[in-house]
């Protein structure tokens, strides 16, 4: 009966809307004097981070604490992992400690899937970024931010909650190494948005035919048509070859500078999952411009992660996520 959040491809449109609508209600408690609810009292959330992270870990920690869950932070540095402990042994340890949810970030694609399916532990697994595969809660907070800021531009259905129908979002930069891009392609298209991937050919995945997105190599012609542009971080730590001649050349061809900022429609948003390489994929002027919603993205991240934890954990069975074998 376990269920997990491993990939946005597992979310139906109704699942995704339930997360966004729940997050919308939970966002209101951020304005209250007491930002805490007793909902997950006595539950234990383990943040299992094999990779450095600031905002995702803090965001999950804040989300869990606002729901009164106990939080255990585990980072590979300074733990038995640096002595060579395997993922399996770590998982068995966490199971013995009674973890209800394991939020896992790992440099290898598929590690959360392994954790969820290997029968090592009983907990719900939430993927907080695995290698170059997926980062579902980032995509959910991006969708939440898009919906909040562009609500009046979205084609609304007669009944039910608003999705992202009719929006055009460009995802620009290092798509090849980006788990944020993969999660967003699935989720934004599920929610009805049109997604364009823009990258140099060397940083575009080889087989994007099956993806619900369009592919372009020229940024300037796309910019006037978008409702939001999502700049991806150039992931130097995952690059083991030369993908572009120089940082300056990359910045000139695919960086969001002032000239490109002026090509955007007046209402269009500038987004970035962070951390930003100012001066490389995004200029300081663009990052700090009024149309940049980077700080809102971080704020919304807490509400969205609260919604995910609430929906996975509060009931007798989770309200979202894909069915396990035997469920």
């Amino acid at each position, binding site marked *: 009966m376990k269920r997990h959040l491993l990939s946005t491809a597992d979310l139906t449109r109704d699942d995704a809307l339930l997360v966004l609508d729940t997050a919308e209600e939970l966002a209101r408690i951020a304005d209250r004097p007491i930002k805490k609810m*007793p909902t997950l009292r006595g539950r234990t959330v383990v943040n299992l981070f094999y990779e450095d992270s600031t905002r995702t870990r803090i965001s999950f920690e804040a989300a869990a604490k606002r729901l009164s869950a106990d939080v255990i932070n585990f980072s590979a540095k300074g733990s038995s992992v640096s002595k060579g402990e395997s993922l399996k042994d770590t998982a068995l340890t966490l199971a013995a400690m009674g973890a209800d949810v394991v939020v896992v970030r790992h440099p290898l694609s598929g590690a959360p899937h392994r954790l969820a399916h290997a029968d090592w532990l009983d907990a719900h697994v939430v993927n907080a970024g695995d290698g170059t595969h997926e980062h579902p809660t980032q995509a959910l907070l991006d969708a939440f931010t898009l919906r909040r800021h562009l609500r009046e531009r979205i084609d609304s259905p007669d009944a039910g909650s608003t999705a992202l129908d009719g929006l055009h979002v460009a995802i620009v930069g290092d798509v090849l190494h980006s788990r944020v891009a993969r999660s967003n392609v699935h989720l934004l298209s599920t929610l009805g948005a049109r997604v364009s991937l823009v990258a140099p050919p060397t940083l575009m995945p080889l087989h994007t035919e099956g993806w619900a997105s369009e592919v372009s190599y020229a940024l300037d012609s796309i910019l006037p048509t978008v409702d939001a542009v999502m700049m991806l971080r150039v992931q130097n730590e995952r690059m083991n070859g030369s993908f572009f001649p120089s940082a300056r050349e990359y910045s000139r061809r695919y960086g969001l500078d002032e000239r490109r900022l002026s090509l955007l429609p007046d209402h269009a948003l500038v987004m970035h999952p962070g951390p930003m390489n100012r001066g490389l994929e995004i200029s300081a002027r663009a990052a700090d411009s009024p149309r940049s919603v980077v700080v809102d993205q971080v704020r919304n991240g807490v509400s969205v992660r609260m919604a995910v934890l609430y929906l996975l954990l509060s009931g007798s069975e*989770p309200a979202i996520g894909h069915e396990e074998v035997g469920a």
Partner: protein
Amino acid sequence: MTAVPARSSASSDDPRVVLDASDIARALTRIAHEIVERNKGCADLVLLGIPSRGVPLAHRISARLAEIEGTSVPVGSLDITMYRDDLRLQPARALEVTDLPAQGIDGRVVVLVDDVLFSGRTIRAALDAVSDVGRPRAVQLAVLVDRGHRELPIRADYVGKNLPTSLRESVHVQLDELDDRDAVLLGGGGTPDSDAPGDAAEVGSGEGS
């Protein structure tokens, strides 16, 4: 707003209308008068409806208070889902809207409004939720129907109708704003249904716990 006439004795499983639209209107008017009397006016009042059916009831009471006293009483809604003690007994549920009046509730007299008072657990959760959003001077409780079977030491200050029930019966409130008609229905005890207190009750239309 047309009330279905109460049937005398159909099958005992069919829900029976115990309050029709005019009964509900009279009950709410009386509750409004009692609120004014108890609080000597309605200067510092805030009405907080518990979703979903407490909210339209709170608006109706506010409209009556405006007629009686000539001042408008702020109305809000207070979702108590995150404070429930039975969350783990049923699938995770979607949240309802919490919308507090701009003036807040600090130092005011909060009147909680719900449709049915049953086990008292919803009100217990509401009291916790209230204390997380502010510190009112006093909290009072108004319900359209009190069906008994309390499991906690909780009572209502204003009751539209005391309705003695057996645990096997079900009480449903229908309101024009949500259900296109005003009525309180008492379901027969045909099946040992899920709304025994303590059980994971409250599905369908406006069944209180």
